[in-house]
């Protein structure tokens, strides 16, 4: 049984398509919806909650239709039995922590001690047992966030929706909270849809990731597959620091293939074979620059070696960005140590890039590139 099934969802605003034929099915666990701002991920979440009505399509929660335009079904948000954690927490400022959490239970007309028991055990769970009598304005951002979560899980919903819940916290707290959040959701044992624009957050928290752009789903896969085998150029560049270049697939040898890259002075790279590789075909070559090693001398290495000119070093403390010109393409390689400066000829510094074949993904049959993708 799928906890959530979305089929053919379309939602247009005046001049844009927020959702463009979105379909997916999600069994259980934690699903992240990842994408840049304006990609439609929040609209998707609001449609699932019933806060927006799509123009077309249907949404089933636990195999029950919640929204179905063609069948004329629309279950209002108050009857969907789901949880929702808002980006700004949306804690009611005139109620104490206790009353915020108890709000939904009271509407269900439960007995007073049942309500008290459930509120207290939920607050215990999120570690806010001692804050029951406080008002939201007396809590820190992280505590407010946990109250918002408690308010949703106390209802024991089938599904909990989280709309960028960590984006208002500072960087350090955000890293702590995403681990804690995953632990909590797993502990309670409910399924969650988690919207974020931060790929690291999505990877840490979720079991499955949906990457969206401009109202379309680009890839639906577990985090490691998204990282290692991005479905297209957009996913590749959105997921991590990557250099994306055009290439031609020369030949296939077993599990490997050879790709010629025009921008790298027609250098040939050995890569893992994509699924539907055909020799002579155009493709996109994605190089995850974090996995590229730099050296100032040429080593006798059988792997891929590219020669480049060092343009600048940008020292960032723990990491250094090396801006390198390879052929006609400028790429940025980030490494933990500063690459020493030795090989200088005519005032130009030569550098070698060693690229494992696991650091390269080849995407066959590239989609036509669009202006927006080119920005990445």
């Amino acid at each position, binding site marked *: 049984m799928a906890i959530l099934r979305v089929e053919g969802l379309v939602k247009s605003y005046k001049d844009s398509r927020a959702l463009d034929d979105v379909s997916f099915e999600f069994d259980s666990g934690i699903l992240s919806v990842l994408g840049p701002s304006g990609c439609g991920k929040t609209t998707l979440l609001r449609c699932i*909650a019933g806060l927006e009505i799509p123009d077309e399509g249907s949404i089933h929660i636990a195999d029950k239709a919640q929204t179905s335009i063609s069948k004329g079904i629309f279950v209002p948000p108050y009857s969907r039995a789901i949880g929702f954690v808002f980006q*700004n927490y*949306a*804690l009611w400022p005139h109620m104490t922590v206790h009353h915020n959490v108890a*709000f939904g239970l009271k*509407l269900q007309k439960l007995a007073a001690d049942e309500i008290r028991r459930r509120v207290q055990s939920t607050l215990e769970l999120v570690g806010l047992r001692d804050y029951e009598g406080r008002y939201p304005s007396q809590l820190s951002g992280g505590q407010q966030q946990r109250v918002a979560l408690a308010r949703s899980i106390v*209802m024991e919903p089938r599904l909990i929706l989280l709309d960028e819940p960590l984006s208002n916290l500072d960087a350090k707290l955000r890293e702590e909270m995403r681990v804690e959040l995953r632990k909590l959701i797993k502990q309670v044992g409910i399924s969650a849809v988690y919207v974020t624009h931060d790929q690291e957050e999505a990877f840490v928290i979720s079991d499955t990731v949906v990457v969206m752009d401009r109202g379309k789903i680009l890839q639906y896969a577990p985090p490691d597959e998204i990282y290692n085998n991005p479905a297209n150029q957009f996913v590749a560049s959105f997921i991590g620091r990557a250099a994306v270049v055009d290439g031609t697939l020369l030949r296939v040898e077993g599990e490997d293939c050879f790709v010629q890259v025009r921008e790298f002075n027609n250098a040939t790279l050995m890569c893992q074979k994509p699924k539907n590789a055909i020799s002579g075909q155009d493709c996109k070559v994605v190089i995850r620059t974090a996995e590229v090693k730099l050296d100032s001398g040429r080593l006798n290495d059988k792997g891929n070696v590219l020669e480049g000119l060092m343009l600048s070093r940008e020292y960032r403390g723990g990491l250094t960005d090396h801006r390198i010109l390879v052929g006609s393409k400028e790429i940025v390689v980030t490494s933990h140590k500063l690459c020493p400066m030795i090989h200088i000829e005519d005032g130009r510094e030569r550098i070698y890039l060693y690229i494992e074949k696991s650091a390269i993904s080849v995407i066959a049959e590239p989609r036509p590139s669009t202006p927006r993708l080119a920005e990445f």
Partner: protein
Amino acid sequence: MAKDIAAEAAVNWRWVKLIYKQGTLIPLFASIIAGSLIIAPVLIVLSRSLTTARLGTFVGLTGENYVRVFTDPKLLPMLWNSLIYAAGSATIGTVLGGLLAWILARTNTPGKALVELMPLYPILMPPIMKNIAWILLLAPKAGILNNLLIEYFGVQGPVFNAFSMAAMIWVFGLACVPLGYLFLLPVFLSFDPSLEESAYIAGSKPIHTALRITFPLAIPAFLSALVLNFLRGLRSFETPVLQGSPAGIQVFVSRVYDAMSVDYNPGLGTAYSTVLVALSILVLLFYTRITRFSERYATITGKGYRVKAIDIGKWKYVTFLVVFSYFLVGIVIPFLVLIVVSLIPYYDFETFMKFPANMVLTNFYRVMRHPSFVTGLYNSLTLSVTIAVITVLMGIVMAFTMYRTRTYGTKIFEFIGTLPLAFPPLVLSLGLVIVFLGTPLYNTLWALGLGLFVAYFPYALRNASGSIVNIHRELDEAAWVHGARWRHVFFKITLPILKPSVAGAFFYIFIEAIRNIDVAVLLSAPGHEYGPVTLFEYFRVGQWAEAAAGGVIYLLILIVAVSVAKFVFQVKLSL
């Protein structure tokens, strides 16, 4: 086949929308009802002005009333009177109010704290009391000041005349001071000090700097206050009727009133009203243009500068004189006159001068035994509390419908809510008189209550809209997804969060309604009196001491209301 599916989807889609909206149907209906209550008298005034038929019958449209209005030889003098009166009092009030604001905000004038309570004065001193006090002071034969001058300074004959254009402008001008003050105070308080400092560095002295830099920069706010005061002058009822009509000085509002109370000709009354409404709309349009202009005046920002008071040298004695004279003439003397007159057996100059030797409470006994005053007092108390509650709640429901539910026609509600602003209260109540004539509601408290509701609804709506749009939408949505229906959202989230502004609007409308005359004067009837109207009638028939005593009773009620608002509900009341 494909076409059929598409058609079916379209039909169902409408159904989906309907189901979705069912959750919010009740507030929508409530808003529609409130909207029609407001729009009815407005439409009636317009349609009625186009017929000469007796009320309850209909003989087709005619321009006859307008012909009568525009061929009235007194029309031009009347227009002229209206403009002179409104412009004169707006100028006096706004200049004085602005000056007091500058003195308080920017100078080291001694005793300037006397004007700090300015926002409270208009609340405690209803318009009719001002008129009563100033007529007692300035009346040509019986007036206190004229008699003082004749008796002690040997002046021949009366100097002042309460029943003249000059006295009308003087009394309503004083009533315009608080608005000028309240509009200009924030300007002077949030002024970027570097604008003045650079003038000092250029060698300009403080007073010169004030005249050349500070005042010119306050011009947009000054114009806004001026135009708004002008509009208030056009709409004002008490001063023209009590001080103008006895001397034959007619303005539009008093002409409309006479058309109803003397000629009893609603058609004519509505025709004059339409001209007045057209004039008001022109002024309102001008006002919105000015406010837009002042928004573009970029030098005064929202940043909270701490402005310091300037040492204006020997000029501070001049400004002290201004503050002290205003305090005395604008506030203390009218209050004192009212209280003293309420405590003497009857009013004439000799009896007045014997105070306090002849102090008695007979006036209070007399008004409190007078059935029409007691009923009026009771009605005004109960009705204004009820109307304040209903108006504020409806204002929030309509604002909630407009900004928080998925309904169409937000713009229409907004328009309906602001429509009564263009209609002087007397004209609105005229419309309601015509609506109710011949129905069982005529001459009942229901009609009166409805009149007050229509008159104060725009305020409640603007107040509620302003507050609701400031509440984050997610607070509502969080309640929706956690199982709340519209009534839970409204009563458990929206209303409690709005509590401070709800309390403020409640007290404001209560205070305005309990002393209202210009709506109630046409809608109250024997057996259904309204307190302030009863006082107004006392005064017109010469029972000045009783009128003063009734006025003091209202004063006490207002003091209690303001104290409760301030100390129990922490409401910041102003105007």
